[in-house]
């Protein structure tokens, strides 16, 4: 792991205006490393969707991004309500977002499906009442 760069971000709860900061910051770093545009785009989408999920559902959380020459690993960890049925959550259009989030244009039920589409692997480890950890990998 000596060959890797690690970035940490704290996603604040209930602040839609700040969702996207971690994604933008990561994108800026990846561009500086000269990674292919497609890889950067996929990482950005996974990060952004993950951040929005944390804001809408989980009172914020922590994101750790590990960048190595062959892959980018994103670990998104929250202490939110957990996902009771992961299969259902992965379905396009399924959402438990609040009315307030929907009023802002979020909660279309595309977050996790979009992340899955963009990541090479996506693992969700969730316990109801404890929290959720999403681990996404984008390979170079």
């Amino acid at each position, binding site marked *: 792991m000596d060959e890797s760069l690690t970035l940490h971000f704290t996603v604040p709860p209930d602040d839609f205006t700040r969702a996207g900061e971690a994604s933008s910051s990561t994108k800026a770093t990846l*561009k*500086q*490393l000269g990674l292919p545009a497609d890889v950067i785009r996929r990482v950005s989408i996974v990060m952004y969707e993950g951040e929005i999920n944390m804001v809408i559902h989980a009172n914020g959380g922590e994101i750790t991004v590990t960048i190595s020459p062959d892959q980018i690993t994103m670990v998104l960890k929250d202490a939110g309500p957990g996902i009771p049925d992961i299969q259902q959550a992965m379905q396009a259009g399924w959402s438990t977002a609040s009315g307030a989030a929907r009023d802002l244009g979020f909660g279309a039920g595309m977050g996790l499906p979009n992340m899955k589409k963009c990541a090479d692997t996506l693992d969700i480890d969730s316990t109801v009442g404890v929290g959720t950890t999403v681990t996404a990998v984008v390979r170079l």
Partner: protein
Amino acid sequence: MEKFFHSVYLDDSLCRGCINCIKRCPTRAIRVRNGKARIINEFCIDCGECVRTCSYHAKKLHRDTLDILNQFDYTVALPAPSLYLQYNNLTDVNIVLTALLQLGFDDVYEVAAAAELVSAATRTYVREHQDAWPLISTACPCVVRLIRVRFPSLVEHLLPLKPPVEVAAELARRRAIERTGLPADRIGIIFLSPCPAKVTYAKEPLGIQKSQLDGVLAIQDIYPLLLGRMKQVRDNPRALSAAGRVGVGWGISGGESNGMGSDRYLAADGIENVIRVLEELEDDRLTGLQFIELDACDGGCVGGVLNVENPFVARAKLQQLNQRLSARPAPPPPEAPASIAWDAPVKYEPVFRLGSSVAEGISMARRVEALTEEFPGLDCGCCGAPSCHALAEDIVRGQASKSYCIHILRDHIHTLSNTCAGLVAEAAAQGGEYSQERLQELAGQLDQLDTEITMMDVGHRPAVPPEGTDEEGGTVG
């Protein structure tokens, strides 16, 4: 011409080495080194923010003077649409155009008329290239330069059509040749520009191999010269204008989109807003759009730093002028149609890249992050870089040292003065007796103290740290 030529330059005698420009530069292209604001050519996109923001008017812009008219046998003025919007109560564009002839030009060719041709070509191109939606307007050279260095994935969305000024230049020269029979190089095509990005464009265009422009004058230089002449010709102007509302409307943000005949567009102006739109576009967060119009200046071209009038007042003037303009675009020129397509596609330039390989980049980025942690995070700019993070990057690129941070320097000065005080106290305890060795040590420490206090001065942060210093820099570390 060099690849990263710029029209902005510094008047050293006026620059005080303050931090106003480095903080406002959207691409973080300026550093204060040796007490003067230096532009990093590769990073600069000619937006003119530094010109606008410099309290001491030390940022200057290259442009031609009217003397350029003497270099040619026949000259054509190409007024930008925003020129018309500088004047109060203008009821007829022909007054401005006739005054330009009085000023010494042999002919005028409105950029606004060419803009209507570009609008038509854009409509066709957008309709036929659904795969490239949304297409991003390339009329603002500053936006094209920004995308070229910062948004690699958006390069393929650039609308590969010449800007109106280039189309106008080509048509103007062709018309001049037909009217005079002169060889092409005896005809001078001179643009009256609202912004420095167009000055750069004329010398170093993007999207085409060579611009047809022979010179660029600043609207602010021409504006006062036209005022008196406009009075003279006011009652009897020549009928020279052909452009309608669509073409003249290109001078303000949203004007180009207005010529699209579609409502699936987005128009943003002001460089920071432009960057935000491009960031969202890059992440696929803007959907359902066919066309994106981006203007680096607030309000569009009327906000260009070479204009005279406040852009919002200029917009209000357009509303008045519009009542006098035709809703129909100019008739196509009788000459053969101009070639509007690009002939030299724009390529991504990774100027901000760290390292030559991903592995090297990662190792450099790690050092940048570690260094950033050591700095106070005040982003005060006293080091000459716009932020602590930018200083960390400069250090890792070998272009600065840690001692450029005055906060780190201050802590070291404290440590040094404490050491000196300790040596003096030690001597005092021994009845004021210094050994030769101790005296030398004290002198050495005082010497360092003096060096570091001198380094607090703004003029003592060179472009490249002195040889023999590591990234810690100088005596600090």
